[in-house]
């Protein structure tokens, strides 16, 4: 099933992206330094990395949420509705998120 494969692939991508993100953003010198964030996001390469990160995390989060919800009998019958809502939400968040990243 596509959703299962999407979840697995985005998971593998996130292992890389998240490690990178935690090390680069959340650690030195101990917490988030806003100036360093602004400086880093000036670089188009970092913008691209963050957009790719956003795609991976939205895929994984929304397909995961879909699995959790459709595991319950009561919601299982509305599988298609949830799938479309998830895809639509993902698109909206992707557009908003990319716009945000580009705004830096």
């Amino acid at each position, binding site marked *: *099933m596509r*959703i*299962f494969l999407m979840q697995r692939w985005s998971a593998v991508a996130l292992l890389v992206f998240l490690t990178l993100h935690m090390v680069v953003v959340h650690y030195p010198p101990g917490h988030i330094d806003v100036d360093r964030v602004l400086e880093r996001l000036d670089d188009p390469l970092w913008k691209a990395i963050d957009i790719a990160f956003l795609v991976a995390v939205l895929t994984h989060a929304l397909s995961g949420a879909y699995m959790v919800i459709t*595991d*319950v*009998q009561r919601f*299982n019958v509305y599988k298609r509705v949830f799938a479309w809502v998830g895809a639509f939400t993902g698109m909206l968040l992707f557009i908003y998120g990319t716009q945000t990243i580009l705004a830096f």
Partner: protein
Amino acid sequence: MATNGSVPTVTIRIQRFNPDVDKKPYLQEFQVKAPPGKTILDALHEIKEEQDGSLTFRRSCRHAICGSCAMNVNGRHMLVCDAPLREHLDRKGVLTLRPLAYLPIIKDLVVDRSSFWEQYLRVKPWLIPPENIPEKEFRMSPAEVAALRDAEHCIMCGACYSSCQIIALTKQYIGPHALLKAFLRVLDPRDSAPAERLADLDRGDGVYRCHTIFNCIDACPKNLNPTEAIETLRKLVIKRQAFEAARAERQRRLDQPIEIVGETPALSGGE
């Protein structure tokens, strides 16, 4: 355990429910003697014959091959004909018996297994033989049989099904029992429709609804491994066309002496 001379007496709590009379299930206590070697099923028979004739439970063969007597013993599913009474007492020395979990109760320890059987039928649990059936016998190597990992030992007792937390959440999930049977047929060198079977499982309520909780392995009285079977099926679903092509090739030699040198599809799980 209280001792009465040399043979201890134990308390057994059994979940009772008579839909004609009771509003909801309740636990009833019985006392039975527990000599060494007495099984839980022996105790149930004794209670029914000597203490309460209305106690209702399923059983048949008494030696762990029919699968009728699977029930919930202190929270875990097992065959009670195969379970020594003394070995399954909880910390307080009590045994609690409930019917198989997550299924509608018909009476006392008997449950309605319709969903279990319906899901089983969904995987077409019979052999689809090839067109060229050999005159004498189908020849398979010991390695090909070993690749089935004893899946043919399944007695359809329902212990795995009732232990599965996904079944608890939704009966749409096909279930570990059906997937194990599908695995058996898909890897069987005599079966000629693996791609069709794998396509049927390629659904949200098929192989992808298993969340690898492993309760099925813990519950199985025959030490089978539905989770491993499901992981193998997941890999095969992705390359089902190639697998069927390899199977067709293998079936051309089904009536010939085994000269298995390299890998066959079954041996490598389709890789």
